[in-house]
């Protein structure tokens, strides 16, 4: 191949980021271009059409489907209350009356002459979209949403669960090699985004939820704990909509893995700052990784980092992290990129690179099994 594409997660102290905030259906945009917003500012609002309930009126009234419309006591388009009678029929010289009551509050949407069903549309469901990050509105798409721009530290995780949230960042461990423990969480943790080192267990997370912690960021997490946390075995990595009462972001992978020093140091430098986080992960078409954004809107240093800046060719001297056994988690420096295919223990012949793990010994690894670390 002409290029060596190596996945890399972004860890940068200053980046300009844009986030689209869109409504699921057309609605009203509540902010203007150039307006300064906070993460909690509602930027757009709409109403989703309510759910539809069907009522088999022909059966309930004992009439033919084509006669249902004549039995309506309120015309199509009228609003009805829950339990209100909206259709009525009389039979046997008017002695027997059958009534149809609305099972929900809503609007009579239509009547079918073929099936005799009446469709009732429930009340619209209001939907609001917030700005997610502190920043400035740089683009307004009428009726559909806005783009918020912010500047600040930006860290991508490898995997997360739980949705978007915002809070004050607090590093709750002494170093990246330490797990986030029970004793680090107390009443002062309320509303905060806590940073741990190697891992966190479900029981500690449960305490964090109970104490009102908004999110936890750690190096590793055990699949066993994930199953306990979610209550099921996660099959496909499409997350972000879980309602766990907390957002969890894992920066390195599954297992007990120290957080990369660079990531940890950057998070530590954000101590006390307001940060926005999202656990949404999607590892399929349109890869989406969880993220931590620490806006610093007054930053003047120009060091814009494009979002795809870490993806590209590997070269000798680059720092890489191994992302598969038997060296999973180790960090080393690329010393050579031989062009020819080389055999592995499995007998597969693949493209490799030579890595120095810092102890003088050099090892060949499949190129597919490393990721670049920004240096």
């Amino acid at each position, binding site marked *: *191949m*002409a*290029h060596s*594409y190596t*996945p890399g997660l972004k860890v940068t102290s200053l980046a300009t980021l844009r986030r689209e905030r869109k409504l699921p259906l057309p609605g009203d945009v509540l902010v203007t271009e150039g307006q300064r917003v906070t993460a909690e500012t509602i930027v757009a609002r709409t109403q989703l*059409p309510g*759910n*539809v*309930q*069907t009522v088999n009126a022909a059966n309930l009234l004992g009439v033919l*489907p084509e006669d249902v419309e004549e039995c309506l006591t309120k015309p199509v388009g009228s609003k009805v209350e829950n339990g209100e009678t909206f259709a009525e029929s009389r039979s046997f010289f008017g002695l027997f009356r059958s009534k149809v009551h609305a099972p929900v509050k809503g609007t009579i*949407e*239509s009547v*079918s002459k*073929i*099936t005799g*069903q009446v*469709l009732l549309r429930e009340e619209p469901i209001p939907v609001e979209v917030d700005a997610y990050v502190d920043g400035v509105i740089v683009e307004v798409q009428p009726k559909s949403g806005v783009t918020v721009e912010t500047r600040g530290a930006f860290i991508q995780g*490898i*995997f997360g669960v739980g949705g978007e949230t915002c809070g004050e960042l607090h590093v709750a461990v002494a170093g990246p090699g330490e797990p986030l423990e029970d004793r680090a969480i107390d009443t002062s943790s309320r509303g905060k985004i806590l940073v741990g080192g190697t891992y966190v267990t479900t029981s500690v997370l449960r305490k964090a939820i109970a104490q009102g912690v908004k999110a936890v960021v750690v190096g590793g997490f*055990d*699949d*066993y704990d*994930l199953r306990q946390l979610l209550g099921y*075995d*996660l*099959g*496909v*990595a499409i997350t972000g909509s879980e309602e766990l009462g907390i957002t969890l972001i894992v920066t390195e*992978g*599954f*297992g007990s893995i120290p957080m990369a020093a660079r990531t940890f140091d950057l998070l530590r430098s954000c101590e006390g700052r307001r940060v926005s986080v999202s656990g949404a*992960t999607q*590892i*399929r*078409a*349109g*890869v989406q990784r969880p993220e931590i954004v620490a806006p610093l809107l007054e930053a003047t240093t120009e060091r814009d980092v494009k*979002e*795809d800046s870490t993806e590209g060719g590997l070269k000798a001297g680059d720092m890489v992290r191994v*992302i*598969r*056994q*038997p060296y999973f988690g180790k960090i080393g420096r690329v010393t050579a990129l031989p062009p020819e295919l*080389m*055999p*592995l*223990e*499995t*007998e*597969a012949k693949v493209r490799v690179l*030579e890595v120095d793990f810092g102890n003088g*010994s*050099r*090892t*060949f*690894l*499949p190129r*597919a*099994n490393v990721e670049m670390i920004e240096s």
Partner: protein
Amino acid sequence: MSNIDPEKLRSILATDCGSTTTKAILIERRGSEYRLIVRGEAPTTVEAPFEDVTRGVLNSIMEVEELAGRKILDGERIITPQKGNEGVDLYISTSSAGGGLQMMVSGVVKSMTGESAQRAALGAGAIVMDVIASNDGRLPHEKIKRIRHLRPDMILLSGGVDGGTTSHVAEMAELLAAADPKARLGAGYELPVIYAGNKDAIDIVKERLGKKVALVITENLRPVLERENLGPARDKIHDLFMEHVMAHAPGYKKLMTWSPVPIMPTPGAVGLIIETIARDEKIQVIGVDIGGATTDVFSVFQGVFNRTVSANLGMSYSVSNVLAEAGLPNIMRWVPFDIEERDLRNRIKNKMIRPTTIPQSLEELIIEQAIAREALRLAFEQHKSLAVGLKGVQQERTISDTFEQTSSGETLVRLDHLDLLVGSGGVLSHAPRRSQAALMMLDAFLPEHVTELAVDSIFMMPQLGVLSTVHPRAAKEVFEKDCLVRLGSAVAAVGPGKDGAAALRVTLEMPGGRREELALAYGDLRLVPLELGETAKATLKPEKGLDVGEGKGKERVVTLKGGVVGLVFDCRGRQPFRIPEERAARIAKLNQWNEALRIYPARDARKVSTAELRPVEARV
């Protein structure tokens, strides 16, 4: 397409835009036959930051140019027709990028028209997100909610036999209208809906849906209970895939102008090739394509083609779902060493979040191949349950059991009738030893009696499928000579037995007149080398209670085909096939089988453990 003269084609360039990789192959006429020349690949570029599929296509073609040492592109244009040594005469493509074609289907009775509609969509290469039917057990508002939530690329609405009742079809159309579904790609266009149901309900459907969706009417896919007519609906799905779905995917409008042949959904193209083999050789075939996200199974039995897609069974994106669906014990039963559950779970999840990594150690390869066996087994189970005869067809029975569905709708997939099993996809096509692919397929599919095994050498069945629509001969020649790697024949005795008891005696008349006698015990697996292109006449004498195709205990004389692996005699049992449950016995048995087929390097797999893993020494 009409202006292509197949006989004048000297060179063909074909690409397959997969969800992660775009693969290009160059085929040239050499003398009187067509052969594969080179293959190139590049990452697919449907997503940001490129959002233009043609970028990846051009990159893969550039690799083909480099490898073939000739010019095909003029800037960003494919040179056609071929001039001298530059350009190609034809460019064609398939695509499953961006998640492929995602459909929702609807019928009146779930097990009748609902199932027929599902088969039509699957046969066209779609992923069926849900089947909505009048009797699917959900309340109307639940169905509406589901339709609104799904956002498919296309909906196939069917229901009712011609001349039958129209009220149920009207009800389904009303539900669709109330849901007012939106298309997945491109907010600004109407969702295509194909109606292929009772012709008497066409006006009702037009009235209900005509203004809300892009409605297309075609022939009823179940005109009478006894017959399916899936062709017209499938063709319409292909047309709409091009007109609506592809046209809204990033860069496809441009790509469509490059080829005179419509872009086909990848699985639809693979299905064509499998159908062609079955028809030409008059055999019963199963094909499987195991990918990173999905596993497709194709079969042709009694001339009936079926395809299923297991949308969440795969080896990278979906690997964790294989664990969730199969369960840990089912995966561990194929692993001949101990590994902690916690460790294995974390490894599988790490593969899911970093899907492009590859096994470096033998231990990792063995674990990956164990997972593959379970993914294949589960996908095949799903296939068998959908590849069935028509349900609801009245049998010769009394009026009282007219609605009893049990004796119709049995699976068409008969392993005892299977002639050829073809495997494709990374874990099978790129297994370091071909014998690994052979054993994975034997373990997952458990073919019975005599079956030939093959793999797709470098996964080019999609491109050959679309080529077969314009040049069947070229597609067949390349398929036979460069694509299909024949592994050899497998003989499996069916029936219960006791481990170690005599099971099968075999007399082989090998090429050159040499005779070989084998005596296999129950629980044995044996490999006899027989080269590709060679055959051996085998006299198979099963013990009482075991069947190799002529009945229990009956002798069978059969010609067995060789291949790159050879002849595999499998007396491990079928119906039932059992692996010992006790740990030591299980590991011993697995090692015995692995060694019989020499599937792993000489290093004893039993000795591999996490603690003993050593760095791979530098090989320079």
